[in-house]
């Protein structure tokens, strides 16, 4: 038993060196994966920031369109169809409203315009 202990003791010690080295390699791999995930997460939050900008742009366009539409409706309500000046003003606001509706928010690549 003593002889067994004499062989096994150092063997366990050496085996623990191997095991530690292997565990260290695995720990490094885990650290690398965690690191990549942290970077991915940060990039996703950055993308969320960019999406907020797109939403703000959409809100701006929506608000502008609704206000111009409201002014057009008001103008129609106070205009007389027979008056040339009134017809011109209505047409002018209507054309502007049409142009507003055609404003692009994103380009073909999905970037904010």
């Amino acid at each position, binding site marked *: 038993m003593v002889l067994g202990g004499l062989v*096994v003791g150092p063997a366990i010690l050496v085996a623990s060196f191997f095991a530690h080295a292997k565990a260290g390699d695995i720990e490094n791999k885990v650290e690398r994966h965690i690191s990549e995930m942290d*970077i991915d997460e940060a990039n996703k939050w950055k993308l969320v920031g960019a999406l907020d900008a797109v939403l703000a742009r959409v809100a*701006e366009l929506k608000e502008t369109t609704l206000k111009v539409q409201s*002014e057009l409706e008001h103008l129609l309500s106070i205009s007389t169809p027979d008056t040339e000046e009134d017809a011109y003003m209505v047409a002018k606001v209507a054309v502007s409203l049409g142009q507003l509706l055609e404003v692009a928010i994103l380009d073909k690549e999905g970037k*904010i315009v």
Partner: protein
Amino acid sequence: MPKPPIPNAGFNVVKHLGAGGKYVVQNLNPLEVVREYVSFLKTASEQKSERERIAAKRDVAVKLIESEKEIILEYFKARFAERKEALQGLFDILHQAVETKNEHAMDTALGGILGIVKDSPLKDFDSFRKARADNKILEI
């Protein structure tokens, strides 16, 4: 009486170490153990350094991305606030123009509104980012 666990443990160690391990166990001597220990310490130290390098590189990358995100948010916040203020002024003019049926004022207001809305909010982003990186204050 149960057998003592040590011989089994020895067998298991040899088994797990495989062929190389058997060789190590058969030829074990104290000097070898010390050499293995020193080698282990060196490997452990290198692995620790590598982990610290990975973590430091990650921290730098994350900080950089967060900083870029902050720039984007700051820029758009200021940009959209400025546009909103300008649009509000033009809508006041448009409303007055419609009320008074002032054609000229209406043209001015509509032209201004369309100009702002068609103008890209990203237009000055690069100069803003550059100025911020140089710690300069820039009016957008």
